[in-house]
């Protein structure tokens, strides 16, 4: 297949119009040494039936039959059928950035609604129209905070997802500030540790809640300490948890970021999801990414346009607030549809189901000899870490053989955690599945 409609007659007549003899002639400007003299070494073309067969067989290798308790930043939540049905419409799928508002009102209004939804979800005044993922959103937020405060350093809580931390470190590598870790104590953030961490005039304090280990933190003391220290508080939040938990923006967090994948987006091996970033209006001109705003047309009718573009790379170039151009619009649309379908009650009930099922699972697992909760007394949302008497990788392999993927082996992040499993339980897991998880773990830990 090649999706090229031309026939020989077309080509002939087009070449004649152009005034050259051959298509090759159009490439004559390329210096010979730059040209590839051979055919690329790639597998030959496939027809649509062959292509589908090839990829169907690759996809069939995935063990979709295994019941998964994996989370750690990528979650299985229920996706209503209407999300796919609408977001796959060609007019949304095959448009690009809505630079021409008259030809893009559909996307623009949807993104405006997205911004409003994210603002309401996070308790903030304003949200942009999406970033790549939660981790890059955090990195952008840290950069924002550095500019806003004129300070250099950053405090990051020990409960931050290690890949988020890695991304922030990559983004900050060449400005090389001090990154201090805010230590946790038995999963929680203590006043003492906080005070210590804030000593270095940080631009921002980054706290994730529910954090990587599932632990939920209180925003109020964090906000207060950050404010007292002249730093911005950057909250990293799971959007599903915000159906139930207090909204960090309302409690004074300066910037709220997170990963949008849980909002109606399939896991897809980790991407694409989207990053959201919400903040106060007084920081809006420092925000990265696209913003859609209301505008009146010549008849005074209210519509939507891309606005505050002076922040962006295509106008401001090296002085832009960020380099982002292509964003994650289609995923933001999915989240918009998802949140509209769920509504406040639906989202709350998803959150409550996650909470209840995770707690049931934690109780079941904690009752198994050789299994204990890593942070026995810390509150958690839909995810928790358990310490095993055995190597987590082995236990996981044994469980998979019985059709259960019991959790993420945290040894992949830290050898010291090689006996720890991070177990996520969303509304998609049934009691029967959780009971099976408990049975399988009991067997594997005992064996």
């Amino acid at each position, binding site marked *: 297949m090649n*999706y*090229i409609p031309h026939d020989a007659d077309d080509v002939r007549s087009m070449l004649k119009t152009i005034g050259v003899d051959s*298509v090759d002639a159009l490439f004559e*400007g*390329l*210096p010979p*040494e*730059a040209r590839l003299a051979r055919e*690329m070494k790639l597998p030959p*073309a496939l027809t649509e039936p062959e*292509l589908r067969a090839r*990829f169907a067989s*690759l996809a069939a*290798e995935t063990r979709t039959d295994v019941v998964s308790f*994996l989370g750690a930043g990528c979650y*299985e939540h229920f996706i*209503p059928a*209407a999300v796919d049905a*609408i977001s796959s419409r*060609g*007019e949304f*799928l*095959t*448009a*690009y950035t809505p630079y021409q508002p008259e*030809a*893009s*009102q559909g*996307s623009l209004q949807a993104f405006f*609604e997205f911004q409003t939804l994210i603002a309401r979800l996070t308790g903030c005044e*304003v949200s942009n129209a999406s970033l790549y993922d939660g981790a*890059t959103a955090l990195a952008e937020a840290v950069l924002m905070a550095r500019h806003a405060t004129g300070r250099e350093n950053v405090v990051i809580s020990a409960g931050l997802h290690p890949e988020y931390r890695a991304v922030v470190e*990559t983004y900050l590598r060449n400005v090389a500030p001090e990154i201090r870790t805010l230590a946790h104590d038995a999963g929680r953030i203590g006043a003492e540790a906080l005070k210590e961490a804030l000593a270095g005039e940080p631009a921002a304090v980054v706290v994730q809640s529910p954090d990587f280990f599932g632990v939920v933190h209180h925003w109020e003391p964090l906000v207060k300490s950050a404010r007292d220290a002249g730093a911005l508080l950057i909250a990293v939040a799971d959007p599903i948890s915000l159906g*139930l938990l*207090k909204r960090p923006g309302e409690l004074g967090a300066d910037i709220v970021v997170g990963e949008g994948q849980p909002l109606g987006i399939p896991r*897809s*091996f980790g991407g*694409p999801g989207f990053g959201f970033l919400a903040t106060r209006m007084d920081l809006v001109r420092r925000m990265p990414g*696209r913003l859609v*705003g*209301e*505008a009146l*047309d*010549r008849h005074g009718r209210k519509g939507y*346009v891309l606005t505050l573009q002076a922040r962006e790379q295509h106008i*401001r*170039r*090296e002085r832009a607030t960020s*380099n982002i*151009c*292509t964003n994650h*619009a289609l995923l933001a649309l999915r989240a918009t549809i998802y949140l*509209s379908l769920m*509504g406040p009650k639906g*989202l709350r009930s*998803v959150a409550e189901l996650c909470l*209840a099922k995770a707690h049931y699972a934690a109780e079941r697992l904690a009752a198994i000899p050789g299994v204990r909760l890593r942070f026995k007394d810390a*509150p958690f949302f839909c995810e928790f870490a358990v310490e095993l008497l055995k190597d987590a990788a082995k236990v996981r392999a044994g469980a998979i053989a019985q059709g259960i993927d019991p959790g993420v082996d945290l040894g992949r992040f830290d050898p010291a955690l090689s006996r720890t499993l991070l177990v996520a339980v969303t*509304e998609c897991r049934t*009691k029967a599945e959780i009971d099976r998880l408990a049975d399988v773990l009991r067997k594997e830990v005992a064996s």
Partner: protein
Amino acid sequence: MSEPTIFELSRPGRRGVEMPACDVPSRPAAQLLPAGLIAEAPPALPEVAERDVVMHFTRLSRANFSVDTHFYPLGSCTMKYNPKVNEAIAALAGFAEAHPYAADLAPGLVEALAELSEALCEITGMAVVSLQPAAGAHGELASLLVARAYFASRGEKRKIALVPDSAHGTNPASCALAGLEVQTVKSGANGLLSLRDLERHLSGDVAVMMITNPNTLGLFEKEIAEIARELHEAGALLYLDGANMNAILGVARPGDFGADLMHLNLHKTFGTPHGGGGPGAGPIAVTAALAPFLPAPVFSRDASGEAFLDFNRPQSIGRVRTFYGNVGILIRAAAYIRALGPRGLRDVARYAVLNANYLRARLAEKYPAAMAGACMHEFVATGEPFAAHGVKTLDIAKRLIDYGIHPPTIYFPLIVHEALMVEPTETESKETLDRFVEVMLKIADEAEKSPELLKSAPNTTEFSHFDEVAAARKPRLTWQPPAAG
């Protein structure tokens, strides 16, 4: 009939999707979490029925121009047809439902991504690929960080990035983000970089030069190999912005003409849909010398040929995002590459260039190209001739909307006055191009005879002539309930 916002459709108590009852023994949330964590009320999401949601967003969609519904010759964006089969493939449960930390349970997916990495190496002529970056700009940043890590490993402190004045805005912005100082290099009168200009900027402080090739004027940088040589002699690296790879697929490879590192925009060159602004995917490809510094993990193969995720890259710059990349997009691109094969990909370039030159030639009289001679996959015309009639390129763009054609990119690159950047892509037929020409000539005629038709355009859309200045001055970025009257 303008569509109200989803918030205006909201009615208290109305439900969309409902969740099942809890099937585990459970206590209320307030007993599972300590006091002070739970919000009194859930967030103020709209309360709407599924029927409302479906109608609302379906109607909104109809207010868009898109590739599926309109010719969309948006320069620099490669708005080609996005094959439907790739949508079906990306949606296969084995791909869509795979968890990133269960790579062991998705060997076929790992294989597909390893094959994609290899194909991109062969297409670019580079040694190793990282699939992590989420878009072109992200790839630029990642690459520049790789370059910096490379120099750091050699104890070099180079801090300057050379960027042509015709470059896309992401180039200088990415440099800034990577902590590099941008120096702008002027394009020559012919729209090309010249060795001589370059030499003026070269020094031991230059880390990298970012070059888009074909450049944003749609021209191939003829002296690219010499430029690469000089950069290399000065100890600097050549970064290739691969946004325009559609023009040279299978014809020329950055690795062969001297690039050290580059990004690809899979959402341009490899036919993945643009999604109303994204997501894309911006893999980067580098030479062997730079490979140790790539973000980890990298899709690789072990001695037995088995694909695996290689995390063991001690010199890596680290991660630029979570997990492995925009896999949903990567899979579509992998399928596209497999569908077309080496000849099909080469034909993409050939016909993309043919289409652009055909339009260039047919429009030349009324819309002179900024630069003489053949172009590659796109060309930049200027709307200047219409200035005499008080008509700007913006007016031409808006008038195209009235004829059901998405406007080309306008006012970019910055070095062309009243720029009109036209990229038809290879998937458009001669008939579509001919209709575009017909419309453009008609508009030229209108511009001369009744310019008010253009100044007032678009006249067929629901909205027209937004006051963008006022919108930016007092931004309204979220929907607010009307003040109680």
